[in-house]
């Protein structure tokens, strides 16, 4: 029997998720609330049906997520009766670290990368699922599905274990860990098509609506709360916008769009000329930017 590509991807991802549960002592799923996380969670629920998924979810909250994301997160965890851990880097909060005051590089490092490492150490997770895809960014394209991290959570791109067939090497020593990317082989279109086909709920911010934005350096930044300082030459406008990707609100640019349902999003996507990570300011703060962040332990 031949499967279409989406069935093949689904079956591959379920295999990967089960493999982690079978081989690791204490896995966790990093849940970022975005569309990829939603798809990954949906696949995990399928992998372990009719029972509950046998691991916890972890959300690393930078305290700068869109309000609608947090609302959606709480709704989903309640609906599926999930065990969710929310981790915030309290030290960063004490020092009032934020994207506006400290810039994207420092903010992402302290509130996301450091915070994630704190949480992984605190709960002693030996395996962490992430929703990253290889088509997102060039350095991701070279990462393994089971991506080994040393005791400091660092990724060494030049010394990755070869990954043959579906025989993943899950052997690690004490305090080492593995990041697992079940969606490695999915593309952005695949994700949307699957969301459509499976009717997977996603954060409403992905759909176009009138929202207050300012135009900063040619990026449309949504005014989600009063922490975003409006400069003199900027003015808040109500625009029909949506997000192709969701991160910290001052670091995630919106696109003007009329796509208010998934069908329209897919059409827009197919006609679009910009990649989804263009809305992520953190990718371009230096050349080889994502690669450096990943080596430090970022996803």
């Amino acid at each position: 029997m031949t499967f279409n590509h989406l069935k093949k991807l689904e079956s591959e991802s379920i295999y990967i998720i089960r493999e982690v549960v079978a081989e690791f002592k204490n896995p966790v799923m990093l849940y970022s609330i975005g569309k990829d996380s939603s798809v990954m969670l949906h696949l995990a629920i399928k992998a372990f049906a009719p029972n509950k998924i046998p691991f916890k979810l972890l959300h690393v909250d930078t305290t700068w997520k869109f309000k609608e994301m947090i609302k959606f997160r709480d709704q989903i965890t309640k609906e599926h009766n999930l065990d969710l851990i929310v981790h915030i880097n309290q030290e960063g909060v004490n020092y009032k670290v934020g994207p506006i005051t400290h810039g994207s590089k420092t903010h992402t490092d302290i509130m996301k990368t450091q915070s994630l490492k704190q949480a992984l150490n605190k709960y002693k997770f030996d395996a962490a699922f992430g929703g990253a895809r290889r088509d997102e960014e060039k350095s991701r394209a070279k990462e393994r599905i089971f991506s080994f991290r040393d005791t400091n959570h660092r990724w060494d791109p030049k010394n990755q274990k070869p990954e043959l067939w579906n025989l993943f090497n899950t052997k690690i020593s004490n305090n080492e860990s593995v990041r697992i990317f079940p969606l490695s082989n999915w593309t952005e279109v695949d994700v949307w098509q699957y969301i459509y086909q499976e009717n997977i709920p996603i954060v409403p911010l992905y759909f176009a609506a009138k929202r207050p934005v300012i135009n900063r350096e040619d990026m449309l930044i949504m005014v989600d709360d009063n922490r975003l300082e409006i400069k003199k030459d900027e003015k808040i406008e109500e625009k029909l916008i949506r997000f192709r990707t969701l991160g910290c609100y001052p670091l995630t640019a919106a696109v003007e769009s009329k796509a208010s349902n998934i069908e329209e999003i897919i059409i827009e996507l197919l006609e679009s000329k910009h990649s989804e990570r263009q809305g992520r300011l953190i990718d371009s703060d230096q050349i080889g930017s994502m690669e450096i962040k990943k080596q430090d332990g970022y996803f």
Partner: protein
Amino acid sequence: MDLKKFFINQNSKKQLKILTCGSVDDGKSTLIGRLLFDSKSIYSDQISQTKFESEKYGTQGKEIDLALLIDGLQAEREQGITIDVAYRYFETEKCKFIIADTPGHQEYTRNMATGASNSDIGIVLIDATKGILDQTKRHTFILSLLGVNHIVIAVNKMDILNYDKINFDNIVQSFEKLSKNFNFLSKKYIPMSALIGDNVFSKSKKMPWYSDETLISTLESFDIDKSSIDEEFSMPIQWVNRSGSDFRGYSGTISSGKININDEIIVVSSGQKARVGKILTPDGNADFTYENQAVTISLDKEIDISRGDLITTDLDKIKIADQFSAYIIWMHKDNMLPERNYIFRFINSYINGKITNLEYKININSYEKIAAKSLELNDIAYCKIALSKATFFKSYTQNNQLGSFVIIDQFNNLTVGAGMIDFELRRSNNIIWHDMTIDKKKRSKLNSQKPCALWFTGLSGSGKSTIANILEQKLHQLTKRTYLLDGDNIRHGLNKDLGFTDVDRVENIRRVAEVSKLMTDAGLITLISFISPFKSERKMARDLFYDNEFIEIFVDTPIEECEKRDPKGLYKKARSGKLKNFTGIDSDYEIPLSPEIKLKTVSKNPEELADEILNYMKKNNII
């Protein structure tokens, strides 16, 4: 756009996994860049980023360097080389493509094998200006070995040769000759220019003499799905699903065949039978399911099944053995040594084992079989493998999921090799272990002593034999029955055929470990005094014994001290180059990290050190 049509079309697309291989500078990255560019898989911000980088690192003057779209890691962009397997995605009207991009450098054969293990089609790139190179032969061999049955020979850079037909024909002829050795199911030749785009997506007007399809149309037309739906149903158990509720099911991805509710299945490990109760697929409950689906199956009665098992409808189709022959690819800079223990990872289990016979190595440029004693990085060989317990499998050519394995180093967990099973060796079934009436326990009772192995390890001249000799005298006085196996003495007889290379050292220790096991079984307190420089072999010896029966004694003498003592004048010979492979000089000694006893010899005499061991034995109720 008609969305309905779009979804119908999307849902009918098949997935094609392709691998591009070629030598350095054949234009692989350029070809992949071209495929992404022409399939409109590249967005404008990625293009502007690449333009920016082209100015900095590009090789195409002011033109955009398509290769830079592909080379993902910063080191590669700076050095202009591709250093690891990368995966790319693009789609056409008919197919979704996943491309594995693997480097052509000689030292990166392991990456190509990695890419090939997950590919349906191989594109062999040949630079028309250079013709067939050693790398081409190597890549063709690996594709065939890994069972990539469909290949395209893309003769690139035709633009440089003014699209000359004769050049193309010559390459086709040479490749035909080369590929006589292999059984590819389909093989297509395409003249093209990735740089300009000739015959990649659109037909080249410059080569009217070529009337066949473009690269993309050729790829789309391959019939890659080798269906096993008519074969027996087999599913390796990946995970037993019983968390929390009353439901108990067996999860796995079906490796062959089809199964219906109420069909009878057999558990390979126990031969127990049961009928299928419920079938849970990703789309919910179903009446039947088939190959490649990730499912959960419940049974009509409770039987013992766990991860590592296989359920099937026909036991005769499944091989079960603890020894088999296989092709292996060595992927690590530390050499593979026969008789050394490694971890073998199969579809749903890890089993300890070793390569017992290295039948031959294959020169992948000439395809000659060569005798070998060990394997180096990127070597490919045919060998026999013995596992510590039996597993189920099929031959790789029959089913690549049940016929493949990877080899893992037992100390650092690195993936050091990969293998493809050829056939099972049933030797072990003919040799059965006889349990004798008089056993170790009875012998120990008669001797009124607990047998054990005292394993002395340390540099030459560290004092192993001296201490062991004194200790044996002391045990003798206590009327204990002992035997002392000494490195030099054993090399006069049992091991006189062995030298001092790494391969021979491994075999030396293996034999001694087996002999000491027999002596311990005979009820003796066995003292073994061997340099035993490698932790792998010390572990191998330890694994032959029960806990508390094996006592590792590290005679810890600094090399300077050993060299000062030099009782046999060996260090002097080694330093002057007259003696090769001498431990501590030009051969490694791997320090034991957790020996039972560590003897610091510098400030104590051998008498005191022997007493330390006696005390340990008393404390642990051995004597």
